[in-house]
C-alpha cells in the first residue's frame, strides 16, 4: 500500500509571533492539508492566508458559520488581499483549530481552491472556501494574524496527500 498522507513540515511557536511561513513546498503531492492549533497571545485576530508572497487583491472567500448569540450567517469577500480562513471562529485566548485543504495545489492550469473548517468553541464555527486567482503552483504558504499574535505553543503542520 502506497503511503499517501505525509507530513511535510511542522512549526511550534516558542514565542508569540504574527505569522508562520512554509516555503519551498514540493510539488510532489496532489493536495495539501494545513492543521493549525492555536490561540491569540492577547485580544482577537482573524487568520489570513497568503500564497507565493502574493499580496495583491487576487483572493476571494465565502463562508457559512455559527456566531455568538445563536446567529447563523453566510457572506463573502471578493478581490481581497486578506482572505480569511475563518469568519467568526477567530483567534482569541481560547484554544481552537483551523484545518485547511489546498486542492490540487501544484497544477499550473487552474485557479486554486482552499476548503477550510474553523473551530473556536468560544466565538464561532463554520466552513470557508477560498480562491486564489492564479494558475501558478503553490510553493509557499504564509499564515498570519490580522492583529496581535499567535501565542506560544501554537502549532502549524503541513501534510501532503497523494492521489496515487
Amino acid at each position, binding site marked *: 500500500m502506497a*503511503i499517501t498522507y505525509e507530513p511535510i513540515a511542522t512549526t511550534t511557536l516558542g514565542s508569540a509571533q504574527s505569522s508562520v511561513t512554509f516555503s519551498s513546498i514540493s510539488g510532489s503531492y496532489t493536495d495539501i492539508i494545513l492543521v493549525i492549533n492555536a490561540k491569540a497571545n492577547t485580544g482577537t485576530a482573524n487568520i489570513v492566508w497568503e500564497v507565493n508572497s502574493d499580496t495583491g487583491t487576487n483572493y476571494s472567500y465565502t463562508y457559512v458559520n455559527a456566531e455568538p448569540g445563536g446567529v447563523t450567517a453566510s457572506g463573502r469577500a471578493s478581490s481581497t488581499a486578506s482572505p480569511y480562513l475563518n469568519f467568526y471562529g477567530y483567534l482569541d485566548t481560547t*484554544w481552537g483549530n483551523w484545518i485547511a485543504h489546498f486542492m490540487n495545489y501544484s497544477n499550473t492550469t487552474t485557479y486554486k481552491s482552499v476548503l477550510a*473548517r474553523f473551530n473556536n468553541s468560544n466565538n464561532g464555527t463554520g466552513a470557508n472556501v477560498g480562491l486564489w486567482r492564479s494558475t501558478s503552483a503553490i510553493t509557499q504558504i504564509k499564515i498570519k494574524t490580522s492583529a496581535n499574535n499567535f501565542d506560544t505553543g501554537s502549532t502549524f503542520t503541513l501534510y501532503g496527500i497523494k492521489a496515487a
Partner: protein
Amino acid sequence: MANTYTAIATVTVGAGGASTIEFTSIPATYTDLYVLLSLRDNRASTSGDNVKVTFNSDTSSVYSYRLLYGDGSSAGSASGSSEAQTRIQYASADNQTASTFGSLNMYVPNYTSSNAKSISSEGASENNATEAYMGLTAGLWNPATQAAITSIKFAPYNGTNWKQYSTATLYGIKNS
C-alpha cells in the same frame, strides 16, 4: 517517509446495542487523533441525535461547544459552556429511514499537549424524508489540570443505546 496516518482501533456494536462506544489506553505516540463514526441510536425521533463526547472519563463541567446545523430547510446554531461533555452531530435516530446510519468525523489536534483540547467535527444523518440534519461542531475540553487524552467515550445525547452495526474507528496522525 514515515506512515503518519494509522488505524489504532475499531469498535463495532453488536446485537443488543451498547450504551457507549469507548476507546481506552490510547497511546501517546501520535500528534493528532481522528475518529470516523457511523452511528444510529434508539431515540424515537426523525430528527437524528447529537453525540456526547467525553475524554478520560471526565464528566465535570469543563467542556464547551458551538454548533452549526441545517435540517433540510433552515440553518441554526447552539452553544454551551461549563458542560459535562462536548457534543458532535448527527447520529441517525430510530424513526429515521431504516438501515441508515449517521456519518461523522472528529479531529483532535495535539491530544497529548498540556493545553486545552479543541475539536473539529462534521456529520450528517441523511434521511429519505423532508427533514434531515447535518452539522459542524467546534468543541473544547478544558480541565483545570490539563492532561493527555487517553480515552474517548461516545454516548447518545437523547437516546440511551447505540444500535447494532454502529461503528467507530480511531486513527492516529503523526506530524513527523
